[in-house]
């Protein structure tokens, strides 16, 4: 790893990225090794050590927004799939890793992790949608290096109405309970995705981001 690790946050017009960038900067301060760059230039991904794809709003809109940046999806695929750089998708950025999104009609995802993004349907009709607020993560201790140091039941901040229904249970790294199991984190190989917002999850979130920045991905 180079002495100055470079984290690239992809900007494709999806909401505010400055606070996300600040969270990554803050998290990296403790080990002083990461430069954080927010960019819409696909060429920047070549020099990235870690890649972050945020996303808020609807699946179809985010996919369209990303596709509207010339060369971005190709560059992402090259760096994450071929070059196996550590990747973190956040919220809709995580959902885009799926085969298919069902929000506002059917939209193809990247197909990196088999599964569909479907509406949350809590068994208890009194539960509100969106699933909004702090929920407790359940995961197998040792499930993933990025979850190391956390207790089962740690709280993360969620705001979403759809979630990732993975085809292979082995790709689900963490869940929360909301009238049934809701996918909180997915991953395989060098890629992970969180339905929750680490950049809005206070101390837990900053520690999670720090773990991601330390993770070599393989």
């Amino acid at each position, binding site marked *: 790893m180079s002495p100055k690790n470079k984290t690239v946050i992809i900007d494709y017009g999806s*909401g*505010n990225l*400055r*606070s996300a960038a*600040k*969270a990554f900067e*803050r998290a990296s301060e403790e080990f002083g090794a990461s430069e954080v760059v927010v960019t819409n230039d696909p060429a920047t991904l070549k020099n990235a050590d870690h890649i972050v794809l945020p996303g*808020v*709003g*609807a699946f179809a*809109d985010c996919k369209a927004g990303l596709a509207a940046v010339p060369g971005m999806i190709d560059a992402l695929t090259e760096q994450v799939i071929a070059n196996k750089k550590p990747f973190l998708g956040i919220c809709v950025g995580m959902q885009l890793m799926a085969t298919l999104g069902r929000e506002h009609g059917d939209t193809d995802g990247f197909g990196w992790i088999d599964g569909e993004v479907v509406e949350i349907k809590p068994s208890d009709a009194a*539960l*509100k*949608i*969106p*699933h*909004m*607020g*702090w*929920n*407790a993560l*359940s995961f197998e201790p040792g499930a993933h290096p990025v979850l190391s140091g956390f207790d089962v*039941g*740690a*709280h993360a*901040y*969620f*705001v*979403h*109405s759809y979630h990732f229904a993975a085809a292979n249970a082995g790709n689900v790294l963490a869940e*929360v*309970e*909301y009238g049934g199991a809701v996918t909180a984190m997915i991953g395989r190989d060098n890629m992970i995705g969180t339905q929750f*917002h680490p*950049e*809005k*999850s*206070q101390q*837990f*979130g*900053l520690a999670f981001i720090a773990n991601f920045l330390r993770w070599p991905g393989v």
Partner: protein
Amino acid sequence: MMLKTRIIPCLDVDKGRVVKGVNFVDLVDAGDPVEQAKIYDAAGADELCFLDITASHEDRDTIFEVVAQTAEQCFMPVTVGGGVRSVDDIRKLLLAGADKVAINTAAIHNPEFVREAALKFGSQCIVVAMDAKRNGDRFEIFTHGGRKETGIEAIGWAKQMAEYGAGEILLTSMDKDGTKSGFDIELTRAIADAVSIPVIASGGVGTLDHMVEGVRDGHASAVLAASIFHFGTYSIQETKAHMQAAGVPVRMD
């Protein structure tokens, strides 16, 4: 292992400074909003709300700076309300670092604005704030700090806003606001039970039992309070401990 009730401190901001009113008059200046936000963040508040009450148009940009500075230092969800009238207002607040915006009067003047905003930015960031007051045997929506009636019936309005794409309702009782006598439980429960989106109860908190009642009896997903936190009557941690002891699930870590 479940979703926790959110405790949301609210900071009323006028020209970039924190104030808190009693029944929306007699404002008392009491500090720097960014410093206050940091205190609430460190204390484990579940979200933060800024209500911008700046009246004059030329001073309105002060809120963007407050939000931007807060977002650089506090890694928690922030909602901004007050004077949100256009798609451009929303975009500027989100770009400054707000996670959600609360639309109030502009929704009453043009309900389609809520639909447009939800389509453009996503329901997850569109909160509809409604100020309701008893009028005869029903609840109605009021504007201008409770002084101006609209004739709009509150429960039907909440349902309409949810249907138009609001992701959440911030419900303030104008009868209770500033009284420290507790939420209007009948109002809160009527709205919370009528819509499938989360409802934040606001207006009237004076004791920690009031917070419990808003959730247990009012069925709110979150409780918002300003003065009990701002003037140090209770801390966030005391509030959470009290709610937990009363059986309300809260985040303690």
